[in-house]
């Protein structure tokens, strides 16, 4: 029992990152019908920026930070990262996707992949601001919030599981963000515009919805979620690297497809589901062979299986082609 509980918490922590990233994919796909391949890289940039903020702070203070200060650092780090990623998302859309909106989808996909290449390679160049490293080929250690990495005593005593506060923090933040996003999309003016654009681009424009602004805000919103995902990933794995966005990005895309691409609650559920199934399969053994090294293949096998059975995704709706 304790074992399963432990695994579930691990799985949900992994799933959180997928869910946060999958939302970005699904929202952009909803409004633009475009797979934004640079999304994983936006997440990576967010993680680097947050790490930079904490290091800059520590250098300016000159002393080792106290526990309270690391909390403030984390919050500031996230805010700066969110700002930077929001700006990055806005710029990417403006420079690389908007000029191609009328061209074939394939052309936009090529620019998306090029952007992803650019970001990966920019992050591999040593960047220093006032002598503090921002990017670099070897990555950075992500600063920890002091006191979040020791297992919670009473959970260990009562349930026999080892859970660090950081994991609960990640779960809580992800859940809160999902609720907030759901509120934004469902009940705000901007959310209404986004939903309208995702149903029909032309009709929305005819109803006076500012298409460009709506698409920009979708990108900004998605990028902020990616920044949060990057920060949480950094905290959990303690290290950020230039190529860290690639595989989680692809998996998050898989999660978005599993949930039915374009479907916002579906993407979140798909992300958590992917985390759970991945963890469950990786824990299995067939004979002497542990399946753990095959962890990265699980998402894609699952993807192909789901596509065969329900091509529109688990929570998606199949629409007949209008003739």
């Amino acid at each position, binding site marked *: 029992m304790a074992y399963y509980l432990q695994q579930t918490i691990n799985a949900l922590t992994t799933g959180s990152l997928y869910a946060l990233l999958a939302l970005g994919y699904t929202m952009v796909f909803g409004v633009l019908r475009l797979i934004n391949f640079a999304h994983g890289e936006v997440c990576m940039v967010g993680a680097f920026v947050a790490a930079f903020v904490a290091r800059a702070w520590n250098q300016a203070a000159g002393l080792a930070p106290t526990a309270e200060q690391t909390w403030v650092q984390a919050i500031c780090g996230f805010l700066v990262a969110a700002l930077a990623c929001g700006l990055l998302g806005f710029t990417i859309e403006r420079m690389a996707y908007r000029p191609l909106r009328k061209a074939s989808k394939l052309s936009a996909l090529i620019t998306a992949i090029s952007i992803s290449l650019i970001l990966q390679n920019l992050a591999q160049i040593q960047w220093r601001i006032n002598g503090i490293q921002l990017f670099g080929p070897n990555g950075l250690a992500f600063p920890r919030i002091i006191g979040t990495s020791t297992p919670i005593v009473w959970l260990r005593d009562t349930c026999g599981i080892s859970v660090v506060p950081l994991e609960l923090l990640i779960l809580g933040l992800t859940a809160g963000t999902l609720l907030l996003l759901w509120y934004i999309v469902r009940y705000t003016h901007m959310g209404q515009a986004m939903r309208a654009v995702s149903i029909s681009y032309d009709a929305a424009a005819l109803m006076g919805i500012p298409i460009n602004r709506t698409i920009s805000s979708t990108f900004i919103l998605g990028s902020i979620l990616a920044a949060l995902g990057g920060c949480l990933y950094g905290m959990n794995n303690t290290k950020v690297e230039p190529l860290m966005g690639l595989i989680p990005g*692809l998996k998050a895309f898989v999660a978005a497809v599993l949930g039915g691409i374009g479907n916002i609650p579906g993407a979140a559920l798909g992300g958590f589901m992917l985390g759970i199934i991945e963890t469950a399969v990786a824990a299995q053994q067939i004979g002497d062979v542990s399946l753990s090294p095959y962890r990265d*293949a699980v998402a894609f096998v699952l993807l192909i299986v789901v596509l065969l059975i329900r091509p529109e995704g688990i929570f998606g709706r199949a629409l007949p082609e209008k003739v």
Partner: protein
Amino acid sequence: MTPKLRSLRHLLIVIGLLVLAGALGVALDSATGYNRRLCLDIAFHASLALGLLLVLGLTGQFSLGHAGFLAIGAYTGAVVCGKAEFLAPQIAFWHQTCGLSLAVTGELVRAGGCVAGGFAAMLAAWLVGMPTLRLRGDYLAIATLGFGEILSVLITNSKYLGGNTGLSIPGMQREWIGQAGPNNPLAQNWSLWLQAQNIALPGAWVLILLVMSIIFVRNLKSSTTGRAMLAIREDWLAAETVGIPTTRYKVAAFVLGGALAGLAGGLYAHHQYLTPDSFRFMFSVELVTMVILGGQGSITGTVLAAAGLTLLPQILRTSSTLQHLAGTLGMETSAWNTFIDKWRIIIYAVLIIVLMIFRPQGLLGHHELNILWAKWRRRATQDTVRVGVSIPPVMPIAIPNPQPLLIVKGLVMEFGGLRAVDDFNLELEPSSLVGIIGPNGAGKTTVFNALSGIYPVTAGTIKLAGHALTGLQPHHISALGLARTFQNIRLFKNLSVLDQIQIAQHVHHQQGLPAALMRHPAFYREAEQVRTVALDLLAFFNLEAYADQMAGQLCYGDQRRLEIARALATRPKILLLDEPAAGLNPAETRDLMRLIERIQREFSVAILLIEHDMKLVMGICQQLVVLDYGRTIAAGPPASIRQDAKVIAAYLGAVGSSG
């Protein structure tokens, strides 16, 4: 030129090109290491991109795992050449008993590895493509993305294939020596085997592979099969309704593309140290970039783009002009070199974005870079402009018994809870002209979609000359003799007017892929015949002057008529016209009325017509069926329909029925 001569000319050109490629390869082998390697890289990338062109450029399906097929080919080739102990006695046999030189024996094994790689990749492509290509949309992209990643994880975890550290053929052979003792019965053959295998990959092989890929794709593209694939790219649904089995063609393109990549892989194993990481997502993406940058469907464009994209990072690194330029800007050569090493991928990506923004259709768009060919084409076009003699190109179909041609009984169509068509019945006599009318949303087009197999019917039976149509695919129904047009014209916009008609004769083609690739005389004979029929049909519709224009460039009325011509080219027994007069002015509508009557007479087809223009419907139809909310509210000759109270109520609103 007669078909036999043209076939002979084709054969001579192919042989000439292959000899040329071989000679170039021999010349290349005398070049220095770095430049030779770069040339081989370009040739490999171009061959791979050409394989992907079949999938992405011709069929319009998006594959993000093409490097996976290269990996399968490469690892298969490596295993055949590096681990196949059982081949050692064969080599000794060929060398000692048959007297083949060691070099030739080694090349034979290498070729064997290539072929094995090709087949392995083909099988993998079939397994991935079969289930996913049934689906519409970008599912292939997602599935192939997954395929590439799974493959990489599998190879990483396989000790036999070298895992993460990878493998090379010489390395595998060394390992082989280490493992077996001197008493092994195979030992005496090892030295021969190694001598045969350690010869470096001749450049001629790679260049011949490239030329073969070019010829293969080029012959495919300008054949029935290739045109069918292009039609799928343009509009899969319209392709289905003119009789093209789209799933089969999509799978064929994917499998052939995979086979080309697998063949290349068999050689690649001798060119490169193999690690699972070298075949991942980014490599597939580079190949996709080459095809899209080249122009989707352009062979010359793809080869150019492959060369350019392979050279670009190298040029940035080694160009002395750039170094000199940096020097004049006050940059040391060493500083420039470190700068460019860091930034070249970024510059490369930025250039691709700029190119995409300014030329979203790719370098060459849908065109080929071929001056001679263009000249020849222009001449051929001049020949085809002829005075419009309208010969009915299709022989009337003799109907043996005077039964109704089409019998629809109790047709029901439901979408979710909505009953769009309810208990629809129809009997269509040969060569009759029946109209379906009704207010918007009455279910008229839904009836057409049910008849042509686009939507599965909920209940009821449809029989065409005794064949049940329910449950059949649209291409099947088209082959049985039912053709249609669409309410919102669905032409193959980026293909020529002539191509539309040639494609629509798909069901009647006899010569398949082998004839297209080998260019038998029969291929040329059929091509000429298909072309003649197409030109005659265009002449009937007064469209022959536009034969070489893109269909999307025609004016609206011409597009409508072209779509009818395309439907007739399938030689149907029944023609369904969905609002042919929509958007036409009164004069054009009058012309259309006469045209429809002429079609019915001269092609002896039965016509089922949806139309809102009452004058047209009442003027030419012998029978009318009136639908309202999916139900048939009246049927009969136009005169009686005009008087029918229910019809008047449906169109004008019932008197006293609602406020």
